């Protein structure tokens, strides 16, 4: 019931907003649908907490601690982003950057995007997951090009082609998985793609085929995670679309993609009896962290800067999943959560800052703290949080990851240390002048929605100081599911 609601609400919303999306009250409607989704997600989470794992819809849907927390997170950030986009998109409309028609597209696609992500998270069918992931790309590609600027078109094209090609590899990987499973499970048809069944027999699956399948899946979903060197579309797409979309792309879609990678890893590692997938994840993770933190130094566009920071943080999480084990998995899950909350809140403030300055170029954004103290403090605290400064939650996860790495993979720690230092210098040297100093900017016709920003930061702060026991249990259960050495 909850699951049905969870999936039905956004798709109904998409349909309805497809018609009414240009209405004066459409932003509120959008937020209302997101709220309903969140309520459904909350109910589902409550049910999972009470009754444990759920298998629903003829085994097509499977809810366990791993995905239900992502579902809740997705619905929550979906709501806050919808709240943020309310004044933001109105300002864009008044500045003439979007037309009512495009606003309709935006609202409809926003809900559709939510639907695809929730579907990808909740489905038990690896094939269906692939379909949903591709759907997520398709629903957002036109949002990236919403402004129709040359840059946004270019970004959209790259997004579409690179993710499309990537995801095609994932399909091939899924097929290989199916082939391998068909041999064991015997049955033609449905069960051979169901994750629960695959998980049950994973140790009997043919290792070589699974290794190949994993490579295809990793390339496919890894492209969407933005793992270096498959990341090339990410900074473009995240920077050129409307800010709410940047927020959900960075905050949510990357998580969902990483979720898919991790699900695949669990299966494959179970079959392989070797650390190959782990090594690959660690390699990708490190490469992403290093490359992204170096590229942070060259950024001039505020959203592009934080897009690279997303690559870096996905790299850290991927590295942690690669290390495996209860502690690292726990930390990686925590990292996904706090990154998603922090990064979306940063995009909110960055969006407002860019609107105020009339540009996304950082050198022209100055003195936010004087112009609008809340936006300034939001950006400052958000950036510090994402840089892993305690007492914010990102620090908690990085603490666990680095200390675990120091024992489990000591060779990687100097690299991480260097990269984190470089990233800190890269981001903070650019954020500080934007927040401090003499100001330049204008007042906006609509007051910015900063509740989402501070709500996110408050949660991140809380997670740094205190993780509620049920949440910790949740993470632990999920970390146990993912397994590792």
């Amino acid at each position, binding site marked *: 019931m909850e699951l049905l609601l969870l999936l039905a609400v956004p798709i109904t919303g998409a349909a309805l907003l497809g018609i009414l999306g240009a209405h004066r009250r459409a932003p509120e409607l959008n937020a209302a649908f997101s709220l309903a989704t969140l309520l459904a997600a909350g109910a589902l989470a409550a049910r999972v907490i009470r009754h444990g794992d759920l298998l629903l819809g003829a085994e097509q849907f499977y809810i366990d601690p791993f995905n239900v927390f992502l579902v809740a997170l997705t619905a929550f950030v979906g709501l806050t982003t919808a709240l943020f986009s309310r004044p933001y998109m109105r300002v864009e409309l008044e500045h003439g950057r979007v037309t009512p028609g495009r606003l309709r597209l935006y609202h409809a696609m926003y809900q559709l995007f939510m639907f695809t992500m929730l579907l990808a998270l909740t489905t038990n069918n690896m094939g269906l997951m*692939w379909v949903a992931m591709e759907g997520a790309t398709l629903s957002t590609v036109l949002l990236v090009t919403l402004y129709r600027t040359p840059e946004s078109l270019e970004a959209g*094209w790259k997004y579409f082609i690179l993710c499309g090609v990537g995801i*095609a590899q994932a399909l091939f990987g899924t097929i290989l998985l199916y082939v391998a499973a068909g041999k064991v499970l015997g049955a033609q048809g449905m069960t051979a793609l169901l994750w629960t069944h695959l998980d049950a027999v994973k140790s009997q699956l*043919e290792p070589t*085929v699974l290794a190949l399948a994993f490579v295809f899946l990793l390339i496919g979903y890894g492209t969407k995670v933005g793992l270096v060197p498959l990341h090339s579309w990410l900074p473009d797409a995240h920077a050129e679309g409307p800010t709410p979309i940047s927020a959900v792309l960075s905050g949510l879609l990357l998580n969902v993609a990483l979720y898919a990678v991790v699900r695949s890893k669990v299966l494959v590692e179970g079959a392989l009896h070797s650390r190959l997938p782990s090594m690959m994840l660690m390699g990708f993770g490190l490469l992403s962290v290093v490359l992204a933190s170096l590229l942070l130094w060259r950024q001039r566009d505020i959203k592009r800067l934080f897009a690279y920071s997303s690559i870096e943080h996905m790299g850290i999480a991927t590295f942690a999943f690669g290390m495996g084990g209860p502690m690292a998995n726990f930390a990686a899950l925590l990292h996904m959560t706090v990154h998603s909350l922090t990064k979306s809140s940063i995009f909110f403030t960055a969006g407002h800052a860019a609107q105020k300055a009339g540009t996304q170029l950082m050198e022209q954004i100055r003195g936010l703290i004087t112009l609008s103290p809340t936006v300034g403090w939001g950006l400052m605290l958000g950036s510090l949080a994402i840089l892993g400064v305690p007492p914010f939650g990102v620090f908690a996860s990085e603490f666990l990851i680095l200390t675990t790495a120091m024992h489990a993979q000591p060779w990687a720690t100097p690299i991480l240390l260097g990269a984190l230092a470089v990233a800190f210098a890269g981001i903070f040297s650019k954020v500080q002048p934007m927040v401090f100093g003499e100001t330049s900017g204008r007042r906006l016709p609509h007051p910015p929605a900063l509740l989402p920003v501070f709500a996110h930061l408050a949660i991140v702060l809380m997670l740094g100081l205190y993780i509620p026991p049920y949440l910790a249990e949740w993470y632990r259960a999920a970390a146990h599911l993912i397994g590792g050495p």
Partner: protein
Amino acid sequence: MTHLTLGQQLLDSCAALLLLLSFAMLSQRRVVTLVNLYAVQGAVLTAATLLLAWRTGEGHLYLSAALTLGLKVAFLPWLLHRLIRRLGVYWDTEPLLNVSGTMLVGLVIVVFAFALAQPITLLASTATRSAVGIAVSVVLLAFLMMITRRKAMSQVVGFLSMENGVFFGAMSASYGMPMVVELGVALDVLVGVLVLGVFFFQIRERFESLDLHHLEALKEHE
């Protein structure tokens, strides 16, 4: 080596035909021809699916074949042709790597693909063992084609051809995917092409051309 039945022989020739078509696409510079080749590829795929359906008696494969026929032989080529006419893009410019070079690389890739397919082939339950290698080849060759082309349209055809390869892989290795998934995949491809159509118009409206070199502004390196 056991004696091959007629069905197997036919299937193998279908596979060989697919590979041949892939190479043809790799070398082809005329966009219209490229789309036609894609349509032919779709047709061969349909034939192969039908053959499999007939041999195994799997009902849902007929549906698959119908879907392939409708989508890949009829609708998509029609749509692409329409786009080509509307947008006026008939020729691709000189590819980034010359044809003979591309072919040579393609050859190496085919060898690699066959090596790769070895373990999968051992596992494949069907009688179409060599086909898996060809499916992998088709995917990788389409990839190569996308890399070497400069026009958005050719890249799209490459993308679609890659999807064909994946589909053929599914078919040859395990008689296709479950129906839900297959429908979903088809839907995605359809929506994807529609989105692309919209995209083309946006790009052309902005740049008055579909040449990809307009889309190289976002970068880190000056």
